[in-house]
């Protein structure tokens, strides 16, 4: 293949530039890995960089040159998360089961400290790691009153703080620290339960709070490697390690709250089918999830098709204006409109109750709540169906319809026997995608009903919850975080969607053969 010399030069320059950027990025990425001695990570960085250089410097591998950027991103942020999900789903990872066994032992010992005469005291400020209180973890910012040493205490232990990054008052109490949000008095009181149960593990035992001070006490619970157990010197109870399930337990079954992360095999999956506390809500959520997805597709398609049929006529005046107005919901930011709808359903001053003269507590009853989310989802989704139906109608062969008219079919008969089946052939793949999308339509539920209403005694499973909102609550809802189980539910959702989509796509292919 001959090339003009100019092109060769430009192409080479671009290639050199891009590869230099890659090399620079690789060095930047490798530096912290070398410092942390993370050799596996470093190996991956080197391998990926070598692969990039190999592919772009080689004269062959043409398709690979075009596919590499997307493939690398796909592997890093789509495929690896899937694998991590799978591996998390077979663990008990979650609150109380975050670290390894040594962490758990340290936490348990620190949690049972008692103040004894002569215990060192500290001035205490409580803070959140990060810039706000909604995430990050609780930490103690401690001041040793004598020589004014500033210490950071977290669930790993003590570490010194740089005095330059702190603002302190006259006594030496820390008022502000870079990278931390110090709790005000009011916040301190609001979180007092969390603060009093928090403990910093130390060699002697642990540091706990007492009022606005902290003391370093001696632990009443001591771990003994010989029996792999923890003995409480006050009550005399002995907690033995259950290494299969990752917690300490007495012979009569009392469990310590703090455990560690272990592989639990398929326990999380078995919970769907065996644990009655999970099985009941799970089945009802699943049933409603199917109803929601099917209902959403059905209603949006019906309304969208009706509009497209109505507009599919030469003698309609103002067609363009109608179209723009109908499609407007599609162009509005859906997350914001979902919240607006939520407020339109407000039982006290919501627009719907006002307009219709009703006094319904929409999200307070199971069926009004379900009707409400379906109505909202129809509003958001029908413009899309309108657009695709319009496109598909315009592509229909005109002569078939005319032949039907000549044979004496009424408008409705022609629609049912000819137009609809033909439309369905081209639209079924899109309807299936829409089903898959709505099956996991997190925003539509979370931002409107947020799962409400919650029946008495089941704070985790609301009547309008989809599997995905349920999963999200399990994984990220402050109390009782359970990543392992949430990951298992994710796997389950994926299987359902994949199976249903697979079957439907296979059936569509058969249909196409009939009509073509």
């Amino acid at each position, binding site marked *: *293949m001959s*090339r003009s010399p100019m092109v060769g030069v430009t192409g080479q320059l671009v290639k050199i530039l891009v590869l230099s950027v890659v090399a620079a990025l690789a060095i930047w990425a490798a530096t*912290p*890995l070398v410092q*942390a001695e*993370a050799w596996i*990570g470093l190996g991956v960085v080197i391998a990926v960089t070598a692969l990039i250089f190999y592919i772009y410097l080689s004269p062959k591998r*043409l*398709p690979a040159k*075009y*596919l590499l*950027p*997307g493939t690398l991103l*796909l592997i*890093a*942020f*789509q495929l*690896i*998360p*899937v*694998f*991590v999900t799978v591996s998390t789903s077979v663990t008990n990872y979650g609150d109380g089961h975050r670290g390894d066994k040594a962490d758990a032992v340290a936490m348990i010992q620190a949690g049972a400290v008692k103040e004894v005469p002569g215990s060192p005291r500290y001035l205490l400020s409580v803070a959140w790691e*990060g810039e*706000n209180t*909604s*995430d990050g973890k609780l930490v103690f910012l401690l001041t040793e009153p004598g020589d004014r040493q500033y210490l950071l205490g977290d669930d790993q232990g003590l570490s010194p703080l740089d005095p330059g990054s702190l603002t302190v008052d006259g006594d030496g109490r820390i008022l502000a620290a870079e990278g931390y949000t110090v709790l005000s008095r009011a916040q301190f009181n609001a979180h007092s339960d969390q603060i009093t149960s928090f403990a910093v593990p130390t060699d002697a035992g642990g540091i706990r709070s007492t009022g606005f001070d902290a003391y370093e006490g001696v632990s009443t619970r001591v771990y003994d490697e010989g029996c792999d157990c923890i003995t409480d010197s006050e009550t005399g109870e002995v907690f033995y390690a259950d290494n299969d399930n990752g917690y300490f337990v007495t012979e009569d079954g009392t469990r310590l709250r703090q455990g560690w992360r272990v592989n639990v095999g398929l326990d999380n999956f078995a919970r769907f089918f065996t644990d009655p506390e999970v099985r009941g809500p799970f089945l009802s959520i699943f049933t409603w999830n199917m109803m929601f997805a099917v209902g959403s597709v059905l209603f949006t398609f019906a*309304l969208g098709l009706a509009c497209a049929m109505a507009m599919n*006529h030469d*003698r*309609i005046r103002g067609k363009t204006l*109608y179209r*723009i107005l109908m*499609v407007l919901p599609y*162009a509005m*930011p859906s*997350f*914001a*409109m979902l*919240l*607006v709808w939520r407020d339109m359903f407000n039982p006290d*001053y919501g*627009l719907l109750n006002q307009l219709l003269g009703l006094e319904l507590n929409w999200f307070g009853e199971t069926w009004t709540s379900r009707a409400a989310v379906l109505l909202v*989802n129809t509003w*958001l989704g029908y413009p*899309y169906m309108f*657009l*695709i139906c319009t*496109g598909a109608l*315009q592509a229909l062969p005109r002569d078939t319809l005319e032949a039907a008219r000549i044979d004496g079919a009424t408008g409705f008969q022609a629609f049912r026997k000819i137009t609809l089946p033909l439309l369905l052939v081209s639209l079924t793949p*899109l309807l299936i995608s*829409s089903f898959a*999308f709505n099956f*996991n339509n*997190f925003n*539509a539920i*979370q931002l409107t009903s947020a799962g409400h209403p919650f029946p008495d005694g089941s704070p985790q499973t609301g009547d309008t919850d989809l599997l*995905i909102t349920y*999963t999200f609550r399990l*994984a990220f809802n402050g109390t009782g975080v359970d*990543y392992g189980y949430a990951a298992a539910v994710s796997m389950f959702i994926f299987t359902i969607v994949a199976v249903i989509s697979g079957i439907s796509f296979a059936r569509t292919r058969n249909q196409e053969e009939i009509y073509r």
Partner: protein
Amino acid sequence: MKGNWFTQVGWRHAVAWVAVAFSLIPIVFVVSSAFNPLGTLSSTSLLPAHGFSMSNLVKLFETTNFGQWYLNTLMIAGVASAVSIFISALAAYAFSRFRFRGRRVSLLSLLLIQMFPQFLAIVAIFLIFTQVGQYWPQLGFNTWSGLILVYLGGALGVSTWLMKGFFDTIPKELDESATMDGASHNQIFFRIILPLVTPILAITGLLAFIGMVNEYIIASVFLTSSSDKTLAVGLVGMVAANTREAQFGMFCAGTLLTAIPTVGVFMFLQRYIVHGLTGGAVKG
């Protein structure tokens, strides 16, 4: 045989009126609340009843980081959708023009992996980025670059399929004659194919942009500090607090401002949209 006016045309207008009313009522409500000087949920009504005022807009910028959220959203969604359509276009070109070993398998596995929506792996993404942030704080939580990378993870996928279908319709003879004239593959891609596929690039870009502006679940796990939020995380947080009834007017003003870029691009691309959507994209 002609039916009467109603069976021919009248019912069409009736359906259209009902649909337009259904479409517009919430939007009219938002507009009226946004300009309602009282600005609480309890004071709002479908049509403006309390006069007209810009006070909600002013308050929105004064009391929240709305301007910053807006900028963040435009930057994140803009950069991520631009890069993602470029990457998909590269891949679609390879799938459409080259025949190589593993082509069919790659196309099929792409479809399968896409069925595992990224937010199902939200727990995993959270765990992964906790680690990433320790080594590279520039990519960790509360950064644009980290969130953009997560979004780009899904770049190959629906849009690649959509584009591949469109690329296939462009005659191969064009490539062949360019090759005869001595053009390289890169030149064919950048000088011949890309200009011809602008409509599909525009549509996939728009869909990706809309999707990312509306994306809430990943962003909410990812962006927690106030200044780095996107509009979705920021506005949802604004009304999620107990003050939501009081801030309803501000919220509606924010909604309208958020709609501006989308509606603008939408109007601009109107003629391409019907065609592009039937190609197989989804927004619920």
